[in-house]
């Protein structure tokens, strides 16, 4: 194989998954835009505890307000939506996903792809660990006056899923969630149809885990935070359980495995990343309004994120959980119970500590989100504990999800550079420097 061909391969392979995802997302927004004409009914739900397989059983289209806010953040639209929501009385401290969504609705509900979004027929709240979610749906219910279903997910306060918890959720699914979805959609629930989707989910989950765990290689072929955001898109959104998702993850896995074989690092917006100098674990969501600038602060310094908790908010798969077609309702319960933000602080500490160790990271970086209490509470404690257990340096930066006013580039860069140099210093060993003053 000559050099030109060898160089061309990753480019072509890279395009496969990227093109596939682009096509999937554009198609999805088209379906949402045309829902009125095609007669599709629409469900709104959130990423953590997203019961996409169940929603599909009722021929409902899944419209995820958080994803819309993220897409609007990436497209620099969220800032004006946030301000619109504030104009309508929402306080400065409210979650900016909420304000971006409400601002977008107030401006005519044109989605991030420039096409109108449909009114929901049902609001399905299947993860209740974030209190803001409940308030968000209250506001949407007020506006749309549609069926609202609340599947209560018990908090894993003791770090374990008990049979009681599972039974409690299955009972809610059987007695409340499924009957209401049948009523809204007019489609009878078919458990075998659900089993079919769950089977697809498990295939995609296997490939996703392989992709995320490829970061254990040195150099890591992926960035498991910034790149990871793209990788989790289909499975955390409206595609888990679809053949499209299975295909996407198969492409992605093939591409990533090829990069491992070639010893390549991650692909960044500026092409292949240079030498891998720092391997980090990141806790917390990213900033979306300055996503590329934020990412650049890492890859320009040779910093790659090898594991992140944010890529587990829509499901934690790397410790063995897979959607199980043989126990369809129980597996949905386990899925909701297991999402990252439903885990208690000791579990989060354990997970992050494992990541630092298993992925041979240089340390932990916390990106604390100004307007997200459910993620941010306890992060300083988490940071100190992980630092103590691993002996690796940690650092703390602060940004916001989709409010561009809360991304202070110079400040973030300053902290990051300090952190990278701190890692460097630690790694280089210790040299006494006393006895200096004249």
């Amino acid at each position, binding site marked *: 194989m000559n050099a030109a061909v060898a160089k061309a391969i990753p480019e072509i392979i890279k395009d496969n998954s990227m093109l596939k995802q682009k096509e999937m997302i554009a198609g999805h927004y088209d379906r949402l835009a045309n829902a009125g004409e095609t007669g599709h009914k629409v469900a709104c739900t959130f990423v953590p505890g997203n019961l996409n397989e169940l929603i599909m059983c009722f021929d409902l289209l899944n419209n995820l307000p958080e994803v819309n806010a993220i897409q609007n953040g990436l497209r620099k639209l969220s800032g004006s939506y946030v301000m619109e929501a504030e104009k309508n009385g929402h306080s400065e401290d409210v979650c900016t996903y909420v304000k971006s969504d409400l601002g977008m609705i107030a401006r005519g509900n044109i989605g991030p792809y420039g096409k109108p979004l449909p009114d929901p027929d049902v609001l399905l709240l299947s993860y209740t660990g974030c209190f803001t979610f409940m308030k968000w749906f209250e506001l949407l219910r007020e506006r749309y006056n549609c069926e609202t279903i609340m599947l209560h997910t018990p908090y894993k306060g003791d770090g374990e899923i008990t049979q009681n918890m599972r039974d409690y959720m299955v009972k809610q699914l059987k007695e409340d969630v499924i009957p209401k979805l049948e009523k809204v959609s007019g489609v009878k629930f078919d458990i075998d149809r659900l089993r079919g989707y769950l089977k697809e989910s498990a295939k995609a989950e296997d490939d996703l885990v392989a992709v995320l765990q490829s970061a254990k290689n040195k150099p890591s072929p992926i960035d498991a935070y910034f790149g990871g955001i793209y990788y989790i898109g289909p499975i955390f959104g409206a595609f888990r359980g679809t053949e499209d998702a299975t295909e996407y993850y198969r492409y992605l896995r093939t591409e990533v495995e090829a990069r491992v074989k070639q010893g390549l690092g991650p692909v960044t917006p500026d092409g292949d990343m240079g030498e891998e100098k720092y391997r980090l674990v990141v806790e917390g969501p990213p900033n979306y309004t300055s996503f590329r600038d934020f990412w650049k602060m890492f890859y320009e310094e040779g910093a790659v994120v090898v594991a992140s908790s944010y890529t587990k908010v829509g499901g934690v798969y790397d410790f063995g959980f897979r959607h199980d077609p043989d126990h369809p309702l129980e597996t949905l319960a386990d899925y909701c119970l297991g999402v990252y933000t439903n885990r208690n602080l000791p579990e989060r500490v354990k997970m992050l500590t494992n990541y630092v160790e298993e992925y041979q990271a240089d340390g932990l970086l916390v990106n604390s989100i100004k307007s997200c209490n459910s993620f941010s509470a306890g992060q300083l404690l988490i940071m100190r504990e992980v630092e103590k257990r691993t002996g690796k340096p940690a650092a703390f930066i602060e940004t916001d999800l989709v409010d561009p006013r809360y991304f202070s580039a110079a400040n973030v860069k300053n902290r990051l550079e300090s952190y990278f140099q701190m890692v460097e*210093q630690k790694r280089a060993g210790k040299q006494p420097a006393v006895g200096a003053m004249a």
Partner: protein
Amino acid sequence: MRTFIGVDLGSTTTKAVMMDENQDVLGRGITNSRSNYDTACRVASLEARIDTRLTLCRRALSKVPAIKGKVGDFLAELERAFRLEQFLEQLDDLEDTCLGQVKGDRFAKVEDASKAALAEVFVRLRGEAAALFAPGAKRKSDFFRDIAGSRYLTVAESVAREVSLPYDLLLNVYDKSIIDVENRPPSEDMDGKFKRALEKVLVDAPEFDAAGDEIRQAVVDALEVVLDEVYLVGTGYGRVTLPFSKEHIRSEILCHGLGAHMMYPNTRTVLDIGGQDTKGIQVDENGIVENFQMNDRCAAGCGRYLGYIADEMNMGLHELGPMAMKSNRPARINSTCTVFAGAELRDRLSLGEQREDILAGLHRAIILRAMSIISRSGGIKDEFTFTGGVAKNDAAVRELAKLVKENYGEVTININPDSIYTGALGAAEFARRAGESGNGGEAS
């Protein structure tokens, strides 16, 4: 002599430290950062070189038996004479620049009169210059802009009145000139100024006359030492704007941590309150940063806050601390928002509260905010080193000591008189390591 320079480009001031290969600090320099970090860097480095020459003079003079015990006095005289030379040189530059501004319609009928008035202003400024640098003279600031500026305004007002010229004409030429003068690199003729200063001291201070030749020789020897600047490291907010390559840049957090460790090797926690940020830093026994927190999005409660308060109260920055120290009943002030502070201040004054109590309350508010940042970085461990411009303020230190004791018990608090140079010192040490190891300083 192999030397290493650390430059800390802060938002308010730029500091430089020159170090030798034995980690001995040879010289320190400071200047206001202006809006031009490039010049600030050059000026601060030049100041550090001047200070280095004084250190070398001290070393050389200590070997002259005839002035044993008087070296300090002699050097103080020498420095004052040198500063005067430097001031006069910049005054010449200011005069030339001001004269160049006397043009255009505005001066159509008064060009000659304005030039004559300016000449008179500068004659008077030169005349009083010696007194500004006399022993024991108190200057509001050591920066040319501040010293020359305040005197120019006073003198120009009198001259304008005497010759019946509108004062704003003279004010206008000054305003147009000062930034240029300030941003012009100072003359590099350091030796010439030192030699002129030396002769002046020998003439003015007869007690040194007897040993004149030996002193001359020692000073000349010190001036002739070749300073080989092996490596320079820049830190601080302005660092990215400088034409330094990446290897020559270090984060100020690391520099402050290392600098504090070098000043006090037992330091474990560092608090730095600078112009626009407050940093809480934890360091290990080798000065390596273990954790840090700093303010984010908002510079409430930083050094600039005090600057703003000083302006609001029409006081000098250095006068705030002493006034607050007079208070026994600090006002309770929660807002550290720089903008709100002005309103808070006026409100309190209108309620009849004492200025010293309000000021003490403001100092406490700053320190409360700093305490929150430190606690987020991991709290205070013994020993605790306080650095940055605010560490020079006794009222801030008093509040800090109280709060440290209340929250963390007995802890040794270190405050170095040169604490403003902590970041530059750390940078100089990084430069030394880089220069010695030839690997860009990574083996730290």
